[in-house]
Every structure is written in C-alpha cells, then in structure tokens.
C-alpha cells in the first residue's frame, strides 16, 4: 500500500485553509496557549531575585508543554465528526483516497499549526524573560537542557494528542462532545508534564529517556488505534 503524497497534501492543505477561516479555531489556538503563558510569567515577575536560586526544582518551561498537548487535541477532535456532520466526508471517501492517506492528511493539518503555536509560545516566553526579567531570575527559569527537552518532547506529545483526538472524533456524534472528551483524555499527559514541571517527578535525563520511549510507543499504538477506528463504513453510516 503506497501512500500518495499528493492526496495527503490535498487533505492537509484543505484543512489548513478551513482552520484559517474558522474564527472559533483561530481564537482557541490563540487563547489556549496564552493561558499557559500567563502563569509562568506571573511566577517570573513576582519572584524576588533572592529567591531565584531556590528555584532549582521548578520547571516553568516544562509546564508549558501542556500547549502541544491541548491545542492539537482540540483541532483533531473536530477533524472527523465536524466533517461528517456537514456531509463533507462522504465525497472525500468516495475518491480513491485510502484510510491512511486521509488520516495522515488530517493529522498533519493538526500537527503543523500546533507545533508552530507551541514553539511560538515558548519563544515568546524566553524572549520576554530574557529581555525583561532580572538576569538571575532569567537564568533560573531558562536552562539549556530543559529547553532542549521542551523542543524534543513537543512533537511526540502533539502526535499522541492528535491520535487520541481523531479516534474520539471518529466515534463521537457531535464536535463539542468530541472536543471535551479529547481534552479530558489529554489530561493524564498534561498531569505528567506538570508533575515533572513542579519537580514531583524529577526532571532528570533517565526520566526524560523513559518518558520519551513510552511516548513514542504510545504514538505508534495511537496511529494503529486511530486507523482502526476510522473505517470507511462507519464514516458514512451515521451520516445524514
């Protein structure tokens, strides 16, 4: 089974066009990340420099890993059920497209803006802190290894959320329920990144490796599960 890049790209491009013209999506993509930016910024700017050195066990940056978990979950949750309700899925699956191509196209469409938003928010945070915070505070909050972990963990976290979102979406009967359920199912992931961020789970290299391995495994299983759920017959059966 060969995957046609042209078909995958067609789906991705069409989804991105649609997102861009959907005010609700644009708003959600803008607000959600800001919520996760505000809390660490308050922390940074309310912290007296003298306390900064005591901050070794908090990882404000990692806290923001919630962004690549939650943003794609919302996008992906809409991906299947939204289209099915509008009746736009039937003409698509009546073309030669394969289930994998459809799934990849949709996943990429959620992945690209999510990663862009997540990296954008991180960059914004780093920039604000570096420019406006006291140097001691800045160096307490922004540390090389953490930044690296942040960058590396973002894509697989987003991928996991996307598979969960798509699987939920394929079975849901309306987009709102799908969105809520997908967010709910992403909470365990957010809980783990938060526990690491607050130092409950030590943010060490072994932790990173173990969590990373688990995450990649989940991504693989998620892809399998999502493609099992997105079945042509089911996509058309509940429509109209």
């Amino acid at each position, binding site marked *: 089974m060969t995957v046609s890049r042209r078909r995958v790209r067609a789906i991705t491009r069409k989804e991105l066009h649609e997102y861009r013209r959907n005010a609700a999506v644009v708003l959600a993509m803008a607000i959600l990340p800001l919520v996760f930016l505000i809390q660490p910024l308050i922390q940074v700017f309310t912290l007296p420099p003298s306390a900064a050195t005591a901050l070794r066990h908090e990882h404000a940056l990692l806290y923001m890993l919630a962004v690549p978990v939650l943003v794609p979950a919302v996008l992906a949750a809409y991906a299947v059920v939204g289209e099915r309700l509008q009746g736009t899925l039937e003409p698509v*699956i009546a073309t030669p497209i394969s289930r994998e191509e459809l799934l990849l196209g949709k996943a990429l469409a959620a992945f690209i803006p999510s990663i862009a938003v997540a990296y954008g928010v991180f960059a914004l945070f780093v920039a604000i802190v570096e420019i406006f915070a006291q140097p001691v505070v800045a160096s307490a909050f922004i540390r090389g290894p953490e930044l690296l972990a942040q960058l590396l963990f973002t894509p697989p976290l987003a991928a996991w959320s996307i598979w969960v979102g798509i699987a939920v979406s394929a079975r849901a009967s309306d987009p709102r329920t799908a969105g809520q359920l997908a967010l709910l199912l992403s909470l365990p992931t957010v809980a783990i990144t938060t526990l690491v961020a607050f130092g409950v789970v030590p943010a060490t290299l072994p932790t990173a490796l173990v969590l990373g391995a688990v995450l990649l495994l989940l991504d693989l299983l998620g892809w399998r599960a999502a493609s099992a759920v997105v079945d042509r017959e089911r996509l058309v059966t509940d429509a109209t």
Partner: protein
Amino acid sequence: MAGLGAPALSVRHLSKRFGDQIAFDDVCFEVELGEVFGFLGPNGAGKTTTVRTLGTLLAPTSGSATVAGLPLTPDNSAQIRRRIAIMPESPGLYLRLSVLENLRCFADLYEIPDPAGRIEHALRAVNLAGRAQDVCGALSKGMRQRVALARALLADPQVLFLDEPTSGLDPVAAREVHALIDGLRRRGVTVFLTTHRLQEAERQCDRVAILNTTLRMIGRPGELRERLFGRTLTVRTAGSLDDPGRVFAGLPGVRGWRPEGTAGYVVEVSEPEMAAPAVTRALVAAGADVLSISRTRHSLEDVYLELIDQDEPGSPT
C-alpha cells in the same frame, strides 16, 4: 476500461442490511455503457444505500456486482473509485473554501494531471466558469449542486452516480440540472440517477428501475406503463348491458371485467390488440350501442404508486 459491450454496472442478487434493518434486498439489474439509468423509489427505499454500496462506501451483505468493469470486492475498491464518481444527496462542499479550492482538493485526491485545465473544463460544463473564486458558502443551493456536479466530473468517470440531484431545488434550478444531465447523455456518460420524482425519472432516463427495498420493475418509462396497466380496455356503451358477464365471458384474451360507472366496463385482457376486436364484436352481437372502446391510459404515476404500495413484487392478476 470496461471491455466493449460489457455493461457499466451489473448487479446480481445484491442485498444490504444494517443489523435487522433491510436497506435493499435481492436487487438485480444491468446498466449499459452510455445509458442514463433511473433508480426510482420513495424515501427510505434504499436508493442511497445502493449508491453507497456500488460506490464501495458500504460493503454489501450478500450478492455480487461489477462496477465499471471491476468485480465489487474490497481489494478492488480503490480501483473502482478511480473509475466512478458519486454526487451525494447533499453537495458536501467545504463552505469556507472557494469553488476553486474545493475542486483543487478533489483534483488532487483523484491525482488528475493538469488540474487547472480539468477544473476549468468541469466548471464550464456546469456553466460556472466565472464563479471559481466565489466562496461556496455564499452560493445558492442550485449553484452548490452544480459545483458538486463539476467535482464529480473532474476525474472523467466511466460511471457517474447522481443521488437525488434535484431534491430541494426550486423548479428553475432543477431544470438547469436536468439540462446538464441531458448534456452528459449526449456526451455518452453513463449515469445512474436516483430520484423519488417520477417525472424526473420519466423525462431524464433511458430506463427506470422502481425500487422499494426490493426491485419492483425495470424498463423504459413507456414499457413500465404498458406492463402494469396497459392491459385493460375501457368500454362505454349507450345503456348498461343486461348481462355483461355473459358478453365478456369466454372471449379470447379476456381475463375478467368490472363495471365502471353506470354504462362503463373495465375489461382486463392479456393482449389489448387481440382482445379489442373480439370485445367489440361481442358487444355488437349482444345488441349494445358501443360509444367507445379504448385502451386504458394511466400515467406513470399510477404505475409507480401501485408498485410501491405492493408488499410483494409480482404481476397483477
């Protein structure tokens, strides 16, 4: 390509159930290349499910079919979808996208070479050449239907399924769609058209199948009328007959009769052409003044209503 003379669609004992619910049952028919074939039935008759099944979106419960020259099997489904196009009941356009963006997406899904040229061609075919940049959400229902038709034409399908293409359209928009279907016929496109509108089937289609879960009848629109209702004669006499039973009984080709009005009779016959002279002679011999004797005219609508009312298919007795 399907071989020369091979039917575009060949359906044998095809059935589809959803759990206990039977969508259509034991359906058999063939559609020739270049034919406009009507699939007529009331709501819930199983028309859409038939289209989806032949279009590989649903797996049949039993039976077999060939679609555009390929056996309908899971292995063939992508290949079949390359050769056909379906215009579903609701156009299903991306309303936030422009006409061009919608068509561009589908040109890519069909991997059409020279998408720009094909899109332009398809838009011209549905008289929407100037509307490529319009956002679909701003188009009227009729125009959306035409965009959906253009989308279905993009890949130059061997068989085009149109599922109730005029439902919900005003008469003007419906007439435009009818003109487009006429255009398709002239170009030799094989069209499988479902409709619950009798007149549409009668006017647009070379042959019509009447479906109500099971297939009730297939034929040219004129034949359908003949086959079910062409077999009666209506007799009018100046006064009522003394003993109509004796007049009609035993005549060749006469199966029965019933009175209609005070001096009228409907005579059931096997072959109107053969029975009419005999009936006339018998009436004259009985001393009746015959005012008229004619084959009963029924609209296709009568045929249709009669057929879909029957619980079981079968010939009238």
